[in-house]
């Protein structure tokens, strides 16, 4: 039977203008991979309907260990939270192959 291990799932929702820089931050923090999708939503910076270039948002999910999650969250909040549409949260999840998610 495969053992189960706890890892962090960091979910970042942000305006698409941040996409490239969030991915750079992710690499700096040492994350080994990510999954991204286009999303729609609304919040403190208005409705982001996703219909044209200026109103699009992405959701980026990262599975990683706790140290990477902390570095990633710190860097994103420090650099981008003041001026950009950005929401992020961290959850505990269970994975079967922990070495895949550093």
């Amino acid at each position, binding site marked *: 039977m495969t053992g189960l291990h706890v890892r962090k799932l960091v979910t970042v929702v942000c305006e698409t*203008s941040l996409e490239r820089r969030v991915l750079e931050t992710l690499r700096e923090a040492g994350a080994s991979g990510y999954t991204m999708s286009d999303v729609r939503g609304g919040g403190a910076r*208005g409705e982001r*309907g996703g*219909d*044209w*270039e*200026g109103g699009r948002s992405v959701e980026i999910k990262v599975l990683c260990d706790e140290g990477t999650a902390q570095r990633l969250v710190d860097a994103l909040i420090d*650099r981008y939270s003041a001026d950009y549409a950005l929401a992020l949260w961290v959850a505990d999840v269970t994975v079967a192959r922990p070495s895949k998610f550093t």
Partner: protein
Amino acid sequence: MIDPVVLFFLLGVFARVLRSDLRVPEPLYDALSIYLLVALGLKGGAELSSALAPSLAGQALLAVAMGCVLPLLAFALLRHLGRLDRSNAAAIAAHYGSVSVVTFAAGLTYLSSRGIASEPTMPLFVALLEVPGLLVGVMLARMGRGRSDGAARVGLGPILRDALVGKSVVLLIGGLLAGALLGPDGLAPVKPFFGDLFKGALCLFMLELGLIAGGQLGALRQAGPFLAAFALLVPPVFGAIGAGFGWLMGLSHGGIALMATLAASASYIAAPAAMRMSVPEANPALSISIVLGVTFPFNLLAGIPLYERMAARIAGSA
């Protein structure tokens, strides 16, 4: 004669204001914008192969000069008359310094429906005019702050690079080159798609722009009366300046009208993206709401016919 392009824009605005569930899917919007850019480039390129103006380099320089002058003028107005802070003034100036390809396309169809020809090099000037306004805007925003607080901001280099390899420049210039290489004969097989269907595609795109513009009307209240007046008065003034540059460039009646249209237009794709990267502290809702809620509709409904009349006077063929 009412233009179908205008009607579809209005339909989009009404649909949004009435809270219709109408929504143009994102992939269709993307496909239409690619189609319009390629079609504009090809159209210019096909004619380019037959008649290349010897004065093209001088004309291109004048176009770039116009692209630098307009944002400086807008910035001065916003700072001194509007008392806006430096970041917001610079960001809005970048929007008004850069250009809107769709406004250009609307101007082109307006002219062609009246049988007024224009220079095939016009799409080249569109591509050239998109970039300087963005760079001037970023520089204006920078002048007021130290070098230390740049962690989250992107410099001029990446902005220039992004603008030059951006979708609109790549497709416009690519289409121009392809059209010039292929010539009218080589383009014949794709003409039904890129030529005959152009106006219909533009109508659908305008429907979506109407939906977006309608959604910006609420945000206009936040922008306030000064910015709303700015967005309404700048197009005719900048249009007149653009017509002057068109005359300096030695363009025809149609060419002058299109230069005026370009000068009067404000970017709503390249500029917001560049400003979010380089001047993130500027409020994007301010510029977008006036560009799409006021300036774009004004140009479409009243501006383009006005610029055509201006051009007719200047070209002496009224």
